[in-house]
C-alpha cells in the first residue's frame, strides 16, 4: 500500500492519472456537448476532437449553418472585406470529427447532465461547454427594442444587422448626421465601437461625403485605445467625428426609432441619417436560464480551468464568462477555449494538463494601412484571470509600423479562423 507521501508524489508527477483513472473512465466513450459555434465553442470543439483523436464524442450545437465573425465586420462596413470573406461554414469541423447539430439549444438540465434541443430531443453530457456569446439588453437604451433594430441597427451580432448598417451608411447624404450610442462596460470588443466610427468615417470620406458628421454618445468617460483613435480621427477625418462623454451629454434620455430622433440630457438629435445603437450586454439566455450567471448577467469562472463556479461539469468560455482582466474578444475566447479543452481532456481521458495561460491581442483599423493594437498575457491568480504583462501601440508611430500592424491584423484573421473553424 502507498503511504500518503508516496501518493502525494505520484499525484504531483501526474503519473497517477494515467495509471489509475483512465481504465475507470474508459468503459464508455465520454461525451462533451458544446453549446454555441462562435470562436469560443468552435475552438473547444475542434481542439477536443483533434487532440483526443476520437476518444471523446464531441457534439457542437449551433443553429446556424454559417458563422459571420464580429471581428473584421467593421472592415466590411469600411469596404475592406466582403461579407463572404467574414463568413465561415462548419464543414471542416465536421470532417475533423465534431458531430454537428444545427439546432438551437433550448435548455440545460444540470441535474441530469443533458441539453434539451429545440425539437425536444436531449443530448447527455459528461462535460458541457457553454459558449453562447452575448445577448443585448435592448431596454438599457430608453425607447430601443428588438423591433427597433431594423430602424436603428446595433450590428453588434454580425450578419444581417451588419449588412443593414452598411446599406444605411451607403445611403447617408453628404452633410448627413450619424449618431452612435456606445455601450457601457462590460461589452463585446472594447475597441469595436471606435474602430466602427473610424470605418464609417472612412467610407464617407471615400464617397466624398466629408461634410457628414458622426456623433458618439458614450456612457463611459474613457474608452479602449482612446488616444490612438482620437489622434487618428484628427489626422484622417478632421471635423467629422465628435465623441461625447457622459458629463457632456448627460445620458441618453430616449430614442424614437420611427421618428429617427435621439434625446440626451443636453440635446435632441433630429433628422438622423444613420443611428447605430449598441446597448448594454449580458451572457446568452441559455447560460442565464441555467443559473450560470451572477447579478452582473455574466458567468463566473475559475481561471485555473474555465469551469463555471456554479457547476464543475460545466465550462463557460468566451463573451458569456467573466474573464477578469481579459477583454471580451475572439482572441480571448479562442485562448480560453484551449484551456477548457485541455482540462476536459485531462478529466475524461487522462491527458496531460498544464497550468492555464491566456493571451489576447486586439487590432483596430483606423484608416487604410493605419492599424493599432493592444494586448497582453494573463494567468490564473486566486481563481481570476489576471494581467501579467500588456502592450499598446504608441501615438506618433511611423507609417511603416502602422502598415506592418495592419498586415498582422489580416494575417491574424486568417490564422484564427483556421484555428476555430478548421
Amino acid at each position: 500500500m502507498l503511504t500518503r507521501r508516496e501518493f502525494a508524489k505520484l499525484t504531483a508527477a501526474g503519473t497517477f492519472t494515467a495509471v489509475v483513472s483512465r481504465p475507470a473512465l474508459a468503459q464508455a466513450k465520454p461525451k462533451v456537448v458544446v453549446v454555441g459555434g462562435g470562436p469560443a465553442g468552435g475552438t473547444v470543439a475542434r481542439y477536443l476532437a483533434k487532440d483526443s483523436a476520437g476518444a471523446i464524442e464531441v457534439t457542437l450545437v449551433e443553429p446556424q449553418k454559417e458563422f459571420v465573425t464580429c471581428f473584421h465586420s467593421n472592415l466590411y462596413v469600411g469596404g475592406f472585406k466582403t461579407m463572404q470573406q467574414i463568413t465561415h461554414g462548419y464543414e471542416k469541423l465536421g470532417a475533423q470529427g465534431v458531430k454537428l447539430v444545427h439546432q438551437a439549444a433550448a435548455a440545460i438540465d444540470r441535474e441530469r447532465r443533458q441539453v434539451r434541443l429545440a425539437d425536444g430531443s436531449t443530448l447527455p453530457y459528461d462535460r458541457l461547454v457553454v459558449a453562447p456569446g452575448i445577448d443585448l439588453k435592448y431596454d438599457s437604451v430608453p425607447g430601443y427594442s428588438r423591433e427597433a433594430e431594423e430602424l436603428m441597427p446595433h450590428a453588434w451580432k454580425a450578419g444581417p444587422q451588419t449588412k443593414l448598417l452598411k446599406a444605411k451608411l451607403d445611403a447617408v447624404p453628404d452633410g448627413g448626421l450619424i449618431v452612435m450610442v456606445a455601450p457601457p462596460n462590460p461589452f463585446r470588443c472594447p475597441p469595436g465601437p471606435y474602430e466602427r466610427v473610424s470605418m464609417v468615417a472612412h467610407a464617407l470620406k471615400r464617397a466624398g461625403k466629408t461634410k457628414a458628421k458622426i456623433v458618439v454618445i458614450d456612457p463611459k468617460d474613457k474608452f479602449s485605445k482612446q488616444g490612438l483613435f482620437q489622434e487618428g480621427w484628427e489626422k484622417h477625418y478632421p471635423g467629422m467625428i465628435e465623441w461625447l462623454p457622459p458629463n457632456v451629454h448627460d445620458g441618453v434620455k430616449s430614442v424614437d426609432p420611427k421618428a429617427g430622433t435621439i434625446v440626451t440630457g443636453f440635446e435632441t438629435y433630429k433628422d438622423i441619417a444613420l443611428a447605430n445603437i449598441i446597448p448594454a450586454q449580458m451572457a446568452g439566455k441559455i447560460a442565464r436560464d441555467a443559473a450560470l450567471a451572477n447579478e452582473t448577467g455574466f458567468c463566473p469562472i475559475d481561471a485555473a480551468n474555465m469551469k463555471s463556479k456554479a457547476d464543475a461539469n460545466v465550462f463557460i468560455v468566451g463573451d458569456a464568462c467573466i474573464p477578469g482582466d481579459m477583454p471580451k474578444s475572439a482572441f480571448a475566447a479562442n485562448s480560453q477555449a484551449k484551456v477548457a479543452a485541455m482540462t476536459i481532456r485531462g478529466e475524461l481521458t487522462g491527458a496531460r494538463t498544464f497550468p492555464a495561460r491566456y493571451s489576447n491581442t486586439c487590432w483596430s483599423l483606423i484608416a487604410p494601412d493605419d492599424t493599432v493594437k493592444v494586448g497582453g498575457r494573463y494567468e490564473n491568480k486566486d481563481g481570476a484571470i489576471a494581467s501579467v504583462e500588456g502592450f499598446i501601440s504608441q501615438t506618433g508611430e511611423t507609417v511603416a509600423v502602422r502598415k506592418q500592424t495592419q498586415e498582422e491584423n489580416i494575417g491574424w484573421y486568417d490564422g484564427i479562423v483556421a484555428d476555430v473553424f478548421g
Partner: protein
Amino acid sequence: MGWRLALSGLALAAVIAPATTTHAGDVAFGEYLASECVTCHQRSGQAHGIPAIVGWPQDQFVAVLNSYKWKERDNPVMQTIAGKLTDDEIEALAAYFESLDSNVKKCADQKPPTPC
C-alpha cells in the same frame, strides 16, 4: 484526510496538480504551449501577413524567440509572448514546431491532400 477520501478525489487532484515532469524539448508540452502561437501563425504553415513558423530548426527557433524575449527584436506582441517563456518552454516549442515539418509534408503527400 482519510485514504479513501484521498483516492475518491484522485481524478480531480490530478487535474488540479499539473504535470510538472516536463523536460527540455518536450513535444507534448510544446504542443500545449503552441496553441497560443497558432492563433496567428497557422499550423498548416500557410502565411499571409504573419510568418510561418513550422519546420524551423530548433536552434533557429530558440534564437528568434530569445531575441524577442530580450527585446532585441521589436514586435510588442512577440516580446510579450516570449518575455514570460522559460528556457524549457522555448525548447519545448522549438521541438514541437520542428516536429510539425514532417507532419505537414505527410499531409501534402496524401491524395487527395488532407488538412493537418
